[in-house]
């Protein structure tokens, strides 16, 4: 590495009264550069696609093979749409990790100080992250969901009843797969903004997905049902099912609104803390 004498352009010392102000578009583009310039985010998105489509196919194959051996009631309850979208409930982990990393990687590496030095209006940074993450996750999530559905129906074809996109309920469920990933990811993003540490954020996120249902399950059933239907996992199941036969759950859109409310609460709390806390 060569050391050279500093060569600096002539100083413009009238910097004091520069007109204008940094804008949201520039902050958004900066966040885009952050996401594409780090391999981990790109890999996480790839993992989302592989897990979402791959595990859907695996689960669907298993269910297709077992279908003829099942009871009439079970065959009656079989939802081919739901079956082909099983991988979404695994892809949600990867999406959650991505959402967490988008925020906590800045804290763990110290980049956050550079970021807030460049953009002192911190909610602008969070808003840019949120919008960018939503757009990316929506595109990837819907692509994964539709791909998993089409592949899954191909696997089921001839062995079980199948669903087609001419059924509005199936379209709703497949679209719901992508939307579920977006809303859940935003919840993780909000949690990460509050918590700021990678490991702790991922633990809380995974806990809210997989530990809360266990706790709910061991409670007396009168409480259990009331609580279960509020859990993200349960909402996700209903959202990705074309014809849900269970009772004591919210409808798919109601569930989606509740999930969005969680995300909004986490994000607003995160934004307030972001402004109030030292970076």
């Amino acid at each position, binding site marked *: *590495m*060569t*050391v*050279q*004498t*500093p*060569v*600096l*352009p*002539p*100083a*413009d*010392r*009238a*910097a*004091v*009264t*520069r*007109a*204008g*102000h*940094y804008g949201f578009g*520039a*902050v958004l*583009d*900066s*966040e885009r*550069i*952050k996401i594409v*310039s*780090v*391999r*981990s985010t790109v890999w996480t998105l790839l993992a989302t696609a592989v897990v979402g489509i791959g595990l859907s196919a695996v689960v669907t194959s298993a269910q297709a093979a077992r279908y003829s051996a099942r009871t009439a009631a079970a065959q009656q309850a079989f939802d081919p749409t739901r079956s082909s979208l099983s991988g979404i409930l695994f892809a949600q982990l990867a999406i959650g990790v991505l959402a967490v990393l988008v925020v906590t*990687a*800045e804290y763990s*590496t*110290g*980049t956050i*100080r*550079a*970021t*807030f*030095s*460049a*953009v*002192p*209006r911190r909610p602008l940074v969070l808003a840019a992250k949120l919008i960018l993450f939503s757009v990316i996750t929506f595109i990837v999530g819907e692509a994964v969901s539709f791909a998993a559905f089409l592949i899954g129906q191909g696997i089921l074809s001839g062995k079980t009843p199948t669903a087609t996109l001419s059924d509005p309920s199936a379209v709703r469920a497949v679209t719901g797969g992508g939307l579920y990933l977006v809303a859940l990811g935003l919840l993780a993003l909000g949690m990460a903004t509050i918590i700021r540490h990678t490991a702790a954020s991922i633990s809380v996120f995974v806990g809210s997905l997989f530990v809360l249902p266990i706790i709910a399950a061991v409670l007396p059933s009168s409480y259990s049902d*009331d609580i279960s239907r509020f859990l993200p996992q349960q909402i996700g199941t209903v959202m990705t099912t074309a014809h849900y036969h269970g009772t004591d759950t*919210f409808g798919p859109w*109601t569930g989606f*609104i509740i999930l969005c*409310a969680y995300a909004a*609460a986490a994000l*607003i*709390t995160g934004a*307030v803390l972001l*402004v*109030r806390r*030292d*970076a």
Partner: protein
Amino acid sequence: MSGDSLLIGAGALANGGHALHGLLGGHHGLRILVLVLVVAAAAVIVVALTRRARARHAQKGRSAVPASPASAAGVPEHALAGSLRSAGARRDGGAIVARGLSKHYGEKVAVDDLSFEVQPGHVTGFLGPNGAGKSTTMRMIMGLDAPDRGSVTVYGRPYHSLGWPLREVGALLEAKSVHPGRSAYAHLWMLARTNNIAKSRVDEVLEIVGLTSVAHQRAGQFSLGMGQRLGIAGALLGDPGVLLFDEPVNGLDTDGIRWVRQLLRGLAADGRTVFVSSHLMSELAQTVDHVVVIGKGRLIADMPIAEFTSRNSRSYVRLRSPQLDQLRPALEEAGASLTTGPDGSLLVHDLPAEKIGELAWQESVLLYELAPQSASLEEAFIESTEGNLEFHGDPPIEAHGVSQP
């Protein structure tokens, strides 16, 4: 005001609650529980936001103070820097002005009622032992940490109200504040982008700090020194008029240290404001014009370096002689105070070398050495921060910079 908006908010939520009625189905108790939770959460958020808005408002009021006279007149700062000081206008001339700055973390007071100004066209050293509050102060200048009391402004404005922060203030705050998986180039480009700084400027600063050849390598592979250079590149990115460097020579080799010194001098010669911290006086002795010295978060000195040295250090004369005992009484009689140096030499304070020579001649004492010593900046620094060291139990961090008395 805030009460009204709270009521309105609650009203709107109640209406929303009616809409939710159908959605939540027949669970009466649950519905009420959810509503209560939502209303409580909304109330907390509304209160928090109004408090924040009020704080913002108060800060804006403060920032209405006009910028320095030079900037108001549209004259480059450095053209007036000298005249401002000589006219005694120093109080309002600082590019960085801290007033009664205080900050505590939990029980620990980090910065305590600190006031100082940093002038354009000079390199100002910000000195103090480790833990004295230097980094905290720098973070407060950058708006990263909020002061408990007091204020700090850049060109008369709080940092968060700057229109193009990177083009007005550049800072190296911590070595390697970079995502290890991101290239130096991408790191600088994502920062430049926020403040509409051209891509060509990224190449330019990489060239200035000598990282062009490794610009596309992942920063995780960088040495501490390279990380430091990348941080400096980030500070220079917006070609700002005010530059803050927190311990910039940490991790640099001798060449690198010389380079940083040249850079600091060059930036100040351009008329920029350069504020550079160090816990080692020797690192900056030849570089700074002015020093702001703190210990335990309090201001110890704020003065030109020459004044600081002469005020805080006493010069003395070192004597070596086989007949020291014979000379002692005469020296004491002449008003000197005597101490013994670590090598057994005699250290004579408060008496000029000429006078000592005369006395030795009169007493017929043979001298091997008569050496006037002026205390180094390091000693002045240690003397001034004595009793202000934050970590008394630790091995003295300053020790390796101390010259032998």
